């Protein structure tokens, strides 16, 4: 299997606080990774590093075998065009981050039109397809597609998060990073997002890495689970073998049955 990301001895610091410590990890194509763990253990930071939104202080990160960033004790060298790399690695945030001054449609077409130079008509057509995929105006061909012409503030949280997914997909990324995308949503809406992630996975076969608090959510989608604690991976297991860790002292609170959650 081809390697997607490789991290070697990666350290990230905020001021004097170490967020990731000597982090080593290899991620392969076609994997779907879920990263779980308590708040403040560097899960989001880890994702943001892969997209180069966060600067590492030490270590090396490879993307598809190519070194993208190298740092030695704060001496950072970015070895690829940052913006090109970011457009290949899609990321969706917890707080949707849709641009409030643009309609739903324009939020999705912004990148394709102004970064990729795709003709507007084509970008709009593709945006409508993606919207339909995540159930925003699914019947746009027969009824007037009204939602896409609204502003983000007029949509519900679940709808906005689905639009954020469509926006990331519109850039045709090679991998999708999902940073706690369900944490701001109620459990039923989170479950809905999960359904769409499955659909996206079936449609595009795109590798995904998601950070989440819901282990059940993680398990139902991911092929591999990582548990992090204090900037390190403490458990790294195929999703199918998660049951072996039921007695693990750090995992206990996560593996308790969670009722209708997730």
């Amino acid at each position: 299997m081809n390697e997607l990301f490789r991290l070697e001895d990666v350290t990230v610091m905020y001021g004097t606080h170490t967020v990731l410590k000597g982090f080593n990890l290899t991620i392969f194509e076609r994997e779907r990774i879920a990263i779980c763990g308590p708040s403040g253990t560097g899960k989001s930071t880890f994702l943001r590093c892969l997209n180069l939104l966060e600067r590492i202080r030490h270590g090396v990160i490879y993307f598809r075998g190519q070194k993208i960033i190298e740092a030695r004790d704060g001496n950072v060298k970015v070895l690829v065009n940052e913006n090109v790399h970011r457009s290949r690695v899609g990321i969706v945030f917890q707080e949707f981050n849709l641009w409030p001054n643009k309609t739903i449609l324009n939020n999705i077409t912004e990148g394709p039109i102004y970064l990729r130079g795709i003709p507007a008509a084509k970008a709009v057509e593709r945006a409508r397809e993606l919207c339909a995929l995540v159930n925003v105006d699914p019947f746009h061909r027969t009824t007037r597609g009204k939602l896409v012409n609204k502003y983000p503030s007029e949509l519900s949280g679940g709808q906005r998060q689905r639009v954020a997914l469509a926006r990331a997909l519109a850039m045709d990324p090679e991998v999708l990073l999902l940073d706690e995308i369900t944490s701001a949503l109620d459990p039923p809406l989170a479950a809905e997002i999960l359904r769409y992630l499955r659909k996206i996975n079936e449609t595009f076969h795109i590798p995904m890495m998601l950070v989440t608090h819901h282990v059940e959510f993680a398990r139902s989608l991911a092929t591999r689970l990582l548990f992090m604690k204090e900037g390190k991976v403490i458990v790294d297991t195929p999703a199918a073998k998660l049951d072996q860790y039921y007695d693990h002292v750090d995992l206990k609170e996560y593996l308790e049955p969670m009722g209708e959650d997730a």
Partner: protein
Amino acid sequence: MAYDWQLGLLLQYWPAFLNGLIITAKLTVVSIVAGTVIGYVLGVLLSMKSPYLIPVKILINVYNALLGWLPLLVLMVWMYYFLPVLFNIKFDGLTVAYIGLSLNLSAFIADVIRGAIEEIPRSYIDAGRAIGMPFPLILRRIIFPEIVRISLPSMVALYINQFKWTTLASVLGVSELLHTADTIMIQTYRSLEAYTAIAVIYLVVVGFGNLVYMRMQRMEFFRQRA
């Protein structure tokens, strides 16, 4: 005894009123354009975090404070009468009015723009960076439209006020609407009619401006927040 209105008398002065309205409109438009441009630049500078800009920011804050604390009338009278004495710089009344009105507005706009920029959440910029937008594109496509969106209603309120501030120019002998009324009063002794006529003009223009303002406030585009 009821007042004997003689509105018919004013009709023959319509060219004078029209001329006054045109000068008032000129003062408003020119000072709005100049004040907005200056205010934007100052506001952007104020919102920047670079330590090199600290002296510049102190200067801008002094400028804003001076213009904010000084009554505009005092500033304009001072420029008109004392710039020639102190620096041998002589402007006519109209020029002083243009300068005073523009500077006064620029200080308010600088504040509005700085506030608008600070209100833009970092996450919108992150969302742009995340898909690989270079910073100039983020500035043009995300930050600038957002500044306009956040600040436009406040700006419109300032612009409406600017129309009223132009009356101060009458003190410098600029024949805008108020000064026109003064002149007509002197010629006809019908002060009540003359001032009522311009009061109606101000009410109509400002009233219309306020309708636009209220309409904007109700528009979803301007209402939404993060």
